[in-house]
C-alpha cells in the first residue's frame, strides 16, 4: 500500500465527483434530505381524525358524551348520522376514519351500572388513524364513566381509587415521552449514511462500462489502493453529513445529543468504511450501472431499512434474520447512534460495535479486492 498511489486515486475520484456539479450536490445532500423527509413522514402526530357519531340513545347523557369525545384536536366531528348505512357510505368514500355508535340503552345502562353500550367502528384500511380513534374514544369513555360512577361509588363506600389497586409507576429513561421521533432520527442516520455506498457501487460500474478500469489497472496502483481510493472521497462526503445532521436534528426535531461528538464522528467514519466496502463488493461483481443499482437496492438499501432494528426489534426476528442482521454494518451503527445521542454512552460501552464495524469493513474490502482480480482477468 503506497500513500502516493492512494492519493492519486483519491484526486482522480474527487475530480470525477466535482466535474458534475449536479451529481455532486445530490450526493452531498441526499442523506440529509432523506433523513428529514423520512423522520417527518414516519412520525407525524396523528390528530384531526374525522369521525361520525351515530346516536341511537338521543339522551342528554349520550349527547354530552359525544360532545366530550369530539372536543379538542384529536378527533374532528365530521357528521352526525342516523343509521349504519350512512356510516358505511362515509367510510367507503374515505370521508371519515372512524365512527362512534351509541346504543339505545346508553343512559339507562350507565345509571344502573350495567356497563357502557357503545361501539366504535373503524376503517381497517388505515388502522393508524382508526386505532388512534379507538384509543381516544375508550379513554374518554373511561373518564366519563368514572365521573358518573363516582357518586354511586361513594354511596357504596368504595373509593374510585380502589378500582385500580396496583400502583404502576412507569419511568422512561432517555426519551421520557416515548416519542418515536427522538429515537427514529438517530436510528435513521444509519440508513441515510448508507446512500454513498450506492454511489461507490455506481462509480465502479461506471468505470467498467466505459472501459476505464482497465486503464487504471495498467498503472502500478494496487487493487486495495484503488478500492480505498474510491471509498475515501465518499467517506469525506459522509462525514460532512455526520457533522451537519446532529446540528439540524437538534434545531428541527429537538433531538438531544448527550454523548461525545468526537467519538460519534470517528465511529461514523468506521461505519462509512464498512458500508462503502459493501458498495465496492456490488461494484466488483456487476458490470453495468443499472444492474449495480438493482443489486445495491437489494443488499444495501432495503435491508438497511428493515433489518437493522430501527423499526422492528432484532430480538423479535427469527434466528436466520438475526444472523443476517449481524452482517449488516447498519445494525451495529444504529446501536452506536442511539447510544451516543440518547443515553450518551462512551467508548467503554460502544467499543464492541466499533470493532464489529472495522471487522466487517476489512472483510468486505478483502473480498472485493480478491474478486476484483478474478473478474478483470
Amino acid at each position, binding site marked *: 500500500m503506497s500513500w502516493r498511489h492512494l492519493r492519486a486515486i483519491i484526486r482522480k475520484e474527487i475530480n470525477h465527483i466535482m466535474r458534475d456539479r449536479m451529481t455532486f450536490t445530490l450526493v452531498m445532500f441526499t442523506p440529509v434530505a432523506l433523513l428529514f423527509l423520512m423522520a417527518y413522514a414516519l412520525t407525524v402526530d396523528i390528530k384531526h381524525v374525522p369521525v361520525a357519531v351515530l346516536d341511537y340513545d338521543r339522551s342528554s347523557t349520550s349527547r354530552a358524551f359525544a360532545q366530550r369525545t369530539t372536543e379538542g384536536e384529536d378527533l374532528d366531528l365530521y357528521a352526525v348520522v342516523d343509521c349504519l348505512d350512512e356510516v358505511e357510505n362515509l367510510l367507503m368514500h374515505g370521508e371519515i376514519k372512524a365512527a362512534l355508535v351509541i346504543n339505545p340503552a346508553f343512559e339507562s345502562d350507565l345509571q344502573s351500572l350495567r356497563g357502557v353500550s357503545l361501539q366504535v367502528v373503524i376503517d381497517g384500511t388505515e388502522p393508524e388513524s382508526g386505532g388512534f380513534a379507538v384509543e381516544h374514544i375508550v379513554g374518554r369513555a373511561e373518564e366519563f364513566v368514572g365521573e358518573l360512577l363516582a357518586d354511586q361509588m361513594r354511596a357504596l363506600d368504595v373509593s374510585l381509587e380502589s378500582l385500580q389497586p396496583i400502583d404502576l409507576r412507569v*419511568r422512561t*429513561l432517555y426519551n421520557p415521552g416515548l416519542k418515536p421521533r427522538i429515537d427514529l432520527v438517530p436510528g435513521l442516520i444509519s440508513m441515510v449514511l448508507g446512500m454513498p455506498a450506492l454511489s461507490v457501487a455506481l462509480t465502479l460500474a461506471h468505470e467498467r462500462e466505459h472501459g476505464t478500469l482497465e486503464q487504471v489497472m495498467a498503472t502500478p496502483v494496487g487493487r486495495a489502493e484503488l478500492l480505498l481510493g474510491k471509498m475515501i472521497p465518499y467517506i469525506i462526503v459522509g462525514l460532512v453529513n455526520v457533522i451537519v445532521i446532529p446540528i439540524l436534528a437538534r434545531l428541527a426535531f429537538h433531538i438531544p445529543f448527550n454523548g461525545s461528538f468526537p467519538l460519534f464522528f470517528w465511529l461514523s467514519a468506521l461505519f462509512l468504511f464498512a458500508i462503502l466496502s459493501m458498495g465496492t463488493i456490488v461494484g466488483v461483481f456487476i458490470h453495468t450501472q443499472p444492474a449495480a443499482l438493482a443489486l445495491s437496492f437489494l443488499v444495501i438499501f432495503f435491508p438497511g431499512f428493515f433489518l437493522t432494528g430501527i423499526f422492528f426489534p432484532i430480538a423479535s426476528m427469527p434466528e436466520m434474520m438475526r444472523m443476517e442482521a449481524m452482517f449488516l454494518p447498519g445494525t451495529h451503527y444504529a446501536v452506536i447512534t442511539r447510544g451516543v445521542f440518547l443515553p450518551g454512552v462512551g467508548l467503554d460501552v460502544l467499543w464492541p460495535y466499533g470493532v464489529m464495524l472495522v471487522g466487517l469493513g476489512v472483510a468486505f474490502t478483502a473480498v472485493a479486492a480478491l474478486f476484483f482480480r478474478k473478474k478483470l482477468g
Partner: protein
Amino acid sequence: MFKRVWSLVIKEFIHLIKDWWMPAFMLFGGTLELLLVGWATSRPITNLPLMVLDQDQSAASRAVVVALENTGTFALEAEAPDMPTIQDAMERGEINAAVVIPPDFDNELASPKGKPTLAILLNGAESIPATAALRAVQGVISDMGEGITLRRLGLSPGAFSGFDPSLRVWFNETLSEALYTTPAELGLMLEFTVLLFAALSFARERELGTLEQLLVMPFSSLEIIIGKAIPAVLVGFCDFVIMLSMIHFAFHVPIRGSLALLLVVAFGYLLVELGKGMVISVTSRTQHQAFMLVMMIGMVDFMFTGYAAPVESMPEVIQLVANVVPAYHWLTILRGILLKGAGLDVLWPNILALAALGLVIGTFSLRYVRRALD
C-alpha cells in the same frame, strides 16, 4: 411508423436481455422485497429482553413475573441483583424494560385496603419496543388489578366486563397488518421500479454516447420516446401483476372490487410515472444523477402514501399538495378497490384527478423530452 417503433422496441428488449439484472430486479426484486417487508412488518413484537428485580420474593411477586412471561412479549433475562445492574444493562441497550417489585408487594396485596406498587423502567432509546413493553405490562397489571378489586368488593367476575366498548372494524375485520401495509408497499415498489427504469433510459444512452447515434437515425423523436416507453410500461405492468398476485396469495389481501378497473387504472398510473421518469431522464447527464433524483422524488411521494401517517394529520399545505401527487390518488384507488370493494361511483374523483394529472404531466413531458431530443 409502426415498423420503426417496433424495431426500436426490439432494440430495447435486446438491451434488457443483455443486461438481465435490471429487468430481473424490476420483475422480482420488488416482489422479493415485498415478501420480506410484508413478513417483517406483520409479525408481533416478541422476545424483548426484560430484567426483573424481585425484592419481595413471594408467591405474589412470582405470579407477576409468570404473567409477564406469558404475554409472549418478553424474554426474561437473568434476575437482577440490584438497581445499578439494571441501569447499566439499559445504558448498554441490552434490555428494553425492567420491572422492580418492592419488598412489601405481597403484604400490600393481601391487606384489604393495601395499595401495592410496581415500578417499570423503559428504555426510551428504542421507543417502538418500549411502547410494546408498556402495553404488555399495563395489560397484565389491569387484569391483576381487576381480580383484586372484585375479590375485595366480593363481586363475581364479569361484573365489569360490560364496561369495555365493543369494536367493529370494517374492510379489515381481523385487523391484519398485512392488509393495510402491503398495498402501500406495493404502490411504493411499483413507483420506484417504473421511475427508475424510465429515468435511466435516456440518461444511460446519453452517458454511453449512443443517444447521438439514435438521433441521427431516421427516427422521429416521438418514435424514440414511444420505443422507450413500451418496454418500460410492459415490464412495469408485469411487475404489478406479479406483486398483486403475491399479496393476494401470500398475504391474503382480498380483491373485493373490480379487477378489470384496477388493471386499467394501474396502466394509466404507470403512464403518469413514466412521464415523470422521462423528464428526469432527459434532464440528467449521468445515470448516477438520474438515480439520485429518483430517490428524492420517490421519497417525497412516500410521504403522501399514508403508509406511515395519515395525510389528514399533516399540515393544511401538505394536504393541498397531496392532491397533485399521483401516488396519493393511486394509493386511495388501490386500497379502495382491494379492501373496500369500491367502484367507479366512489372512486371517480380520484380517477379523474389521476387522469388530469396524467394529461398535464404527459403533455409536459412529451413536449419537454421532444425538445430535449431535437
